[in-house]
């Protein structure tokens, strides 16, 4: 089994590396560079061509693309993500806290969504065809059919304007302690949780129905095992596996969902930093974020595989 994991690890590393290459090439294709974007219209109107080339040389933008890429890669390998082009500030500090905040939001959402989705999914599967199943399934489809930016704004309308219970816009500092940040972010969390529960319920339900109709559950039932034991001890682990298998897809979905919520609620997360980095052609920041995102998604994949192996011994032989 060790060799399988080693192979997967090597594969994952290669995927992450290919992501960085792809992202670098695409940032090269974009029009303009960091210097261009940072000048206001009035100031640029004053500058002549000579000024541009001088300033560009100062900022190191004139080095050929491969040189810039491999110097970035060499540093990144050592954990130094380089400096932002204009502000000369460490990229690590630029993305440090926003990354923490995005992961925080992702974690809180997962901690809230997964148990609820499991409960609803199991109930829907157990009483398949009856009202709990109807409610859960159509509720799930409704849940992820409403775009996050619409549900987010309506939550703001209801809970921040008509009855001003929650802050409409998060003004917490990026560096604030997680507790203050999360306390102020009830609405964004609720928005992302709704979407996540909707996705997970369908998966858990499908997995659970398959487990309930299996031969081993029938044997256990005919051996006198109680229904509760059947659900928790025999069916549950097997039903979680399909959900785990697409955990990586779920995380990818979460990342993009969070970005919409960041825009609607001004949550200090990584998404907006990414979009601003693209707008400002801060290539080092874009590279760093896509590297981190790739590592997160890939490790989620490995984690899911490990969990599947733990849960389903048959998987160990593969």
């Amino acid at each position, binding site marked *: 089994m060790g060799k399988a994991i080693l*192979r997967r690890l*090597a*594969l994952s590393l290669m995927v992450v590396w290919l992501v960085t290459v792809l992202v670098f090439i695409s940032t090269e294709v974009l029009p303009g560079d960091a210097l261009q974007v940072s000048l206001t219209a009035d100031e640029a109107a004053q500058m002549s061509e000579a000024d541009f080339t001088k300033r560009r040389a100062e900022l190191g933008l004139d080095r050929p693309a491969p040189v810039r890429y491999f110097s970035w890669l060499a540093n990144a390998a050592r954990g130094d993500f380089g400096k932002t082009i204009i502000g000369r500030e460490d990229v690590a500090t630029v993305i440090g806290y926003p990354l923490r905040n995005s992961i925080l939001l992702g974690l809180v959402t997962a901690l809230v969504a997964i148990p609820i989705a499991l409960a609803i999914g199991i109930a829907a599967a157990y009483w*398949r065809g009856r009202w709990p199943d109807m409610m859960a399934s159509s509720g799930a489809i409704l849940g992820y059919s409403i775009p996050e930016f619409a549900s987010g704004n309506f939550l703001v309308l209801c809970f921040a304007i008509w009855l001003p219970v929650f802050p409409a816009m998060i003004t917490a500092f990026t560096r604030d302690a997680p507790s203050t940040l999360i306390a102020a972010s009830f609405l964004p969390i609720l928005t992302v949780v709704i979407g996540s529960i909707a996705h997970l319920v369908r998966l858990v339900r499908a997995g659970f129905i398959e487990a*309930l*109709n*299996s*031969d*081993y*559950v*029938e*044997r*256990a*039932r*005919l*051996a*006198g*095992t*109680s229904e509760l*034991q059947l659900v928790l*001890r*025999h069916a549950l*682990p*097997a039903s979680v596996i399909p959900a785990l298998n697409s955990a990586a897809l779920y995380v990818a979905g979460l990342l993009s969902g969070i970005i919409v919520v960041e825009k609607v609620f001004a949550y200090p997360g990584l998404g907006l930093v990414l979009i601003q980095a693209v707008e400002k052609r801060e290539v080092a920041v874009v590279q760093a974020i896509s590297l981190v995102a790739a590592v997160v998604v890939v490790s989620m994949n490995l984690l899911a595989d490990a969990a599947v192996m733990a*849960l*389903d*011994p*048959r998987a160990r*032989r593969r």
Partner: protein
Amino acid sequence: MSILQATNLNVSYRRSDGVMSPAVIDASFTLAEGESLGIVGESGSGKSTLARALMGYARPGGLITSGEVLLEGRDVRRMPAAEMKLVRGGKVAFVPQNPLSSLTPHLKVGSQVAEAVRIHRGCGAAEARAATLELFAATNLPGPAGLYDRFPHELSGGQRQRVVIAAALAGNPRLVILDEPTTALDKTTEIQVLELVRSLRKRLNTALVYVSHDLNVVSEMCDRVLVMLRGAVVEEGPTARVYRQPSSDYTRKLIASVPRIDREPEGVQAPSDAAPLLSVRDLGFRYPSRGGFFSRAKQTARPALEGISFDIAPGETLGLVGESGSGKSTAAAIVAGLLTAGTGTLRFAGDALAGSARERTQEQRRRIQIVFQDPLSSLNPRHRIESILARPLALFHGLTGAEARRQSLELFEQLQLDPQLLDAYPRQLSGGQQQRVAIARAFAAKPDLVICDEVTSALDVSVQAQVIALLKDLQQRNGAACLFISHDLGVIRQVAGRVVVLRDGTIRETGTTKAVFQKPADEYTRLLIDAASRGYVNLP
């Protein structure tokens, strides 16, 4: 006093359109203390559903609509849940069909049996573990202590079935219901498991309900027998009487179609000494793992085939016999050109035969045809039957349009298939009809050699006999030779003139079927033949 009394039991399933279709219709019988009752029927006869209904249980989507099941005087259907809990696995135990999927994959084998012990004996964890080890010993499982903490997938099929039986015995049942417990096992393991069931029955004096489609096994295990056809009980009585003088003609047809190894087959071509059509010389093969960019193809340790040599004369039928894992299907695949042998040579009609089908000439591809085991998956579900037959006619003989249709109709007539079926889709046909279409497709190419890889195993006994007869008839018409692969000695006896016995990839014995079956030289062959004829005691 009777332990179980079922009176007009009715069970039906809800179809997708909401209509309830009956699976068991007015089944009634009584089971005496310690008696063993066999329930026999073909697939779809409702025998499994009836077996489960005896425990007041119906599969998801099913419903026991009416009838009564008295277990020691109390009706199982009206029992409160608490009492039902003690009955299921307690008084009445259940042994399912497929051991590979009947144990929870992520729970240790020992803990699943201990779970049943604790429910029915109400003891603590330590005693439950001890009792489980005892049960493992009782079902002669090797090294019970070591086995306790293993997972199901780490055990063989036979071992897993013994674990399931151990779990069933946890509650010292008065009645054990077995639903085709040995169908999924190969012959040698089947014998051991049946031996175990018989000895447990004698020792614990439990009643048995033994459900099976295999008449031999039932005649060996059961005192009385029930025959079911499409949900209804068509015959009931002591095994010997039902087998010798069946009152319903369905039973009579069923018994007659059981392939016997002690019966002289008609229409089997005597072995001729003409130049061999196909000659295979010390074939060897190992399965490579599925290669790819990141992992080189590497050889597995155990060779699948080693030193296989045999000849087939034109028009002759050679039987290839062996249990699962003996390599018989691999040999068939190599001859057909689906796999390329590691070592050894193939010669067909005098000249060399390339390993894979792609490298063979179109003529060689036409002259060698194959029919697969599973009828449904050998026909493309998206093609009409007519186009399935038209393809080989067009490719090999350039026949199209009306001429091709005429040929197809002729083949249909030879295989006694209704011409209207030409416009149907494979899913609309029965198993037997699908297999006959597959055979028609093979013979559409007018082959010289037809490879039949377990073509009858997936069929019910009655349909089996009909397909074999049609196959032999078509073989004669075309003068085609046949390499017939099967694990069922009875079928081999009916079809093959000569036979090759395979075990773990090597040949154990070769000779005329009559000689090998009457005086088997090899000890393993003797074991197979003995196993096949155990139930003949009751057969006429």
